[in-house]
């Protein structure tokens, strides 16, 4: 028996059933109440979904990047917010695994089974240009003293552990890991965002937080590299979230168009409707191939930066556009807050901003294309 293949099949069976029974039926309620109803946060801990990609030596299930992305894809088909909450946690675990020293790994990775980890770079001064941040850490003896203000953090307020980008010198960026239980740590304002409303997105304020040397993630000055790496890992998973959103859109429009009639003819027989449905399906499949390729490259230790950026840049606009088409297919119902299509558009729209704006991603893609030819 191929252990990897069998494990993956069992995981995906479980996730499918979990999504069908525990997530999808609550999609609208999650959006409207802006919270994870149905005790979902406890359920993702009890089932160890939170540990899907956590390495086995730290108590996790140790699934690879491709399987993890497919699992996120499946959950997003039920509810995109929950998938993004998991994505935020997984990309943070990834960075501690890649860059953490042994003491840091031993301290925090076993906790990742039940405590969510978040990744925070953005500040009131801006997210696209990291050198513009103001947070900083000062070396005092064998400790670091951290001060600053981080906003728009995915799972901010929910997460208990934060990887924070700070300046360790005027032109030097570094990452540290801080815990919500440390002295000087405070939660700030929650964002009132348009979509992905189940995901808490919030602020943390750091006031003279004192940490050991071991809490430095990677080395001093590695801030940009670690930030880029986190973006890459997040974008693969966001490609999966966006695929799930488009699958959700397809579930809705195919069902509706099959049953809705124009006098006697189901509207799915009409070419104008068919064209929209076909375009959503093409965009969904293209995004899926992009994120799966990125995940495959990652699992096989090859560069995946460009494919990850493509999955998110292409997938986010496609899912917004597909949502718009889906809205049109549902007619007036599509425009109603009582139907799910409108929130799928709002959800997808977030991913043109989070984890690097589409402008920044296109810059990266263009520069990689040029570099490959230089």
């Amino acid at each position, binding site marked *: 028996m191929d252990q990897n293949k*069998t494990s993956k099949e069992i995981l995906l069976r*479980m996730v499918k059933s979990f999504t069908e029974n525990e997530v999808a039926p609550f999609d609208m309620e999650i959006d409207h109440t802006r919270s994870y109803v149905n005790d979902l946060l406890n359920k993702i801990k009890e*089932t160890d979904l939170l540990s899907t990609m956590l390495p086995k030596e730290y108590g996790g299930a140790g699934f690879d990047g491709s399987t993890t992305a497919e699992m996120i894809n499946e959950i997003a088909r039920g509810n995109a917010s929950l998938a993004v909450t998991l994505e935020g946690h997984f990309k943070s675990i990834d960075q501690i695994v890649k860059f953490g020293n042994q003491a840091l790994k031993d301290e925090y990775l076993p906790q990742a089974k039940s405590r969510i980890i978040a990744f925070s770079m953005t500040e009131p001064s801006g997210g696209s240009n990291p050198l513009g941040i103001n947070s900083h850490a000062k070396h005092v003896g064998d400790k670091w003293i951290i001060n600053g203000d981080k906003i728009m953090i995915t799972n901010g307020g929910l997460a208990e552990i934060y990887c924070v980008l700070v300046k360790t010198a005027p032109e030097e960026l570094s990452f540290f890991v801080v815990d919500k239980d440390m002295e000087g740590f405070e939660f700030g304002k929650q964002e009132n965002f348009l979509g992905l409303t189940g995901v808490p997105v919030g602020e943390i304020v750091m006031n003279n937080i004192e940490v050991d040397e071991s809490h430095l993630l990677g080395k001093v000055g590695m801030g940009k590299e670690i930030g880029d790496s986190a973006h890459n890992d997040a974008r693969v998973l966001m490609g999966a979230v966006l695929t799930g959103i488009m699958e959700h859109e397809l579930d809705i429009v195919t069902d509706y168009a099959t049953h809705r009639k124009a006098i006697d003819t189901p509207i799915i027989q009409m070419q104008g409707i068919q064209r929209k449905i076909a375009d959503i399906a093409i965009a969904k499949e293209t995004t899926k191939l992009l994120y799966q390729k990125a995940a495959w490259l990652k699992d096989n230790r090859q560069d995946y930066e460009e494919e990850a950026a493509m999955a998110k840049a292409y997938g986010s606009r496609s899912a917004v556009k597909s949502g718009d088409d889906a809205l049109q297919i549902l007619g007036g119902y599509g425009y109603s807050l009582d139907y799910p299509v409108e929130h799928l558009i709002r959800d997808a729209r977030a991913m043109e901003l989070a984890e690097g704006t589409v402008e920044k991603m296109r810059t990266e893609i263009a520069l990689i294309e040029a570099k490959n030819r230089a």
Partner: protein
Amino acid sequence: MKIVVGIKQVPETTNVKINEKTKNIDRRGLGGVINSYDLHALQAALAIRNQVGGEVITLSMGPDDFAVSLQETLALGADKAVLLSDRAFAGADTLATAYVLSEAIKKVGQVDLVLVGQQSVDADTGQVGPIIAEMLKVPQVTYADKIDAFKDHLVIDRKLENMEQTITAKLPILLTATDKANRPKYTNVVEIAKSFDKPIITWHAGDLDLDEKRVGQAGSPTIVRSISEPQKVAKKNHRLSNDPATAARELVDILKQKNILTEDK
């Protein structure tokens, strides 16, 4: 208590296709899942084991790819699994299936309790459990809704069409579980990897003490002559008068015409 649970892998019900020629389920390219009632049977078995101690062994007859479902039962908490796989078993009906399963249960030995689902969701006969009980010459209680285990006996609640029963039963026994027996747990994600430390044993026809005339196609007296989806009948609307008394009279007339209501004589 030594408990054996029968596990059937079934196609995902949403995309079942029937092969017109063989009249069998076309399993090519279909994702399989564990028959939902069997998950209830397994959950009941695990609860009993956790209560009174013992061992849960899952048992499945089917092609090699059923091993995924057995692996899943190990991740769910079963102690060991047995796969009955052999070309000779192909084409089995309920009689031949139950025969091979009962011989395997004999080979496991010293089994106190056999738990199966009330029926499979693909072939749906509900016959396999009762036939196994007859072949093993043990008593059976079908449609178990609730099972309480004690050292040497069980107390079982079952609901039938016109009565509810509470049965005290001695071991050994076979039970078929309904979906009211419990709420199956989700597979724990970390337990999936750990489940590979537990054994899945494969038995072929030669490993069992079988009469080859009673196995597979040869041992299957039933033949499916044809199988088809029921025809969809279009719904019709009939509007009754607005006046309630007239409407009631019209409704009674219609029901009589259709022989749904009959005259009291």
